[in-house]
């Protein structure tokens, strides 16, 4: 259900931008998604496919750029990408905290067509 609300919000933005540019059709929606948010591409595509029916974004391709969750070690200061569920620093084993990337969630761009 996580993705259903997201799909609704994405389409609201996409439809508004499409309308504002006088376009008729959206052929591609490109998102940037941080891995820490847990949004799955398959699931987003599934809900977008259903909810876009009858609107300008019907049939639009979905492209998702995932951003790795960046962690910083509290002990040695090392910065590294999170792999799986592990938080520990690969260098010293210290505790890693979220370091400013991985919670992105935005519509990066769309591709539109005019008739």
């Amino acid at each position: 259900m996580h993705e259903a609300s997201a799909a609704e919000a994405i389409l609201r933005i996409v439809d508004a931008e499409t309308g504002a540019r006088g376009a008729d059709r959206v052929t591609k929606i490109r998102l940037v998604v941080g891995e820490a948010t847990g949004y799955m591409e398959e699931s987003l595509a599934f809900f977008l496919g259903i909810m876009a029916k009858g609107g300008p974004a019907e049939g639009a391709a979905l492209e998702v750029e995932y951003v790795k969750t960046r962690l910083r070690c509290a002990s040695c200061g090392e910065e590294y990408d999170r792999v799986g569920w592990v938080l520990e620093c690969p260098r010293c084993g210290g505790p890693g905290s979220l370091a400013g990337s991985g919670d992105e969630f935005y519509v990066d761009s769309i591709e539109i067509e005019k008739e």
Partner: protein
Amino acid sequence: MGIKVSIKRAIYEENDARASAIHEGLRARGIFAVNVLGGPGAGKTSLISALAKRIRSSGSKLAVIEGDIASDIDTRALRELGIEAYQIETGGDCHLNAPMIEAILGKMRIEDGSWLFIENIGNLVCPAEFVIGEDLKIVVAGVSEGSDKPYKYPFIFAKSGACVLTKIDLKEAMGFDETFFEAGLAAAAPHAALLPLNGRTGEGADRILEWLVAAREASR
């Protein structure tokens, strides 16, 4: 060939804007809102009940918004204790959002200067994504849920000012690895306070309220 248009708009921008408006409205009335997060059965309602008793006996006012996918069991339980409680049934949505809070605030009786506890849907994922006008998030984790939660759901812990660890009377029976939990919390949320609670006896609730009062003072 389509024309590429750069947008770069946050997907939850509308929710965020409406949450800011709610927050400003509450703040103007001296109401301090706490968004209570946690998995199903973690002890969110028990925590709110324990705090409500103490807040009322200290002469302060409070109101509670209960979010559930379905049923008003928690709201009725709180009302039986004489607590002003209101129900949001999301009918399937796995989190509360700002429009839901806007709608219920319009129907609520809540006095200026009150505490407002908003119990989110039992879920450690989606509720972390939506601001709903709160001053503060706290996350409730139960000993019976296991000691790995900060590792599996670091995002919700990172966004919370404090973690209430409930059912501490079950530590031994559950084989709860406290050191592992604390290390996970320290990593996921280095700023967050760890506040233990035994919801049955109320042990720990005084300390949690003290912490909340200090957080409220600091936000003024």
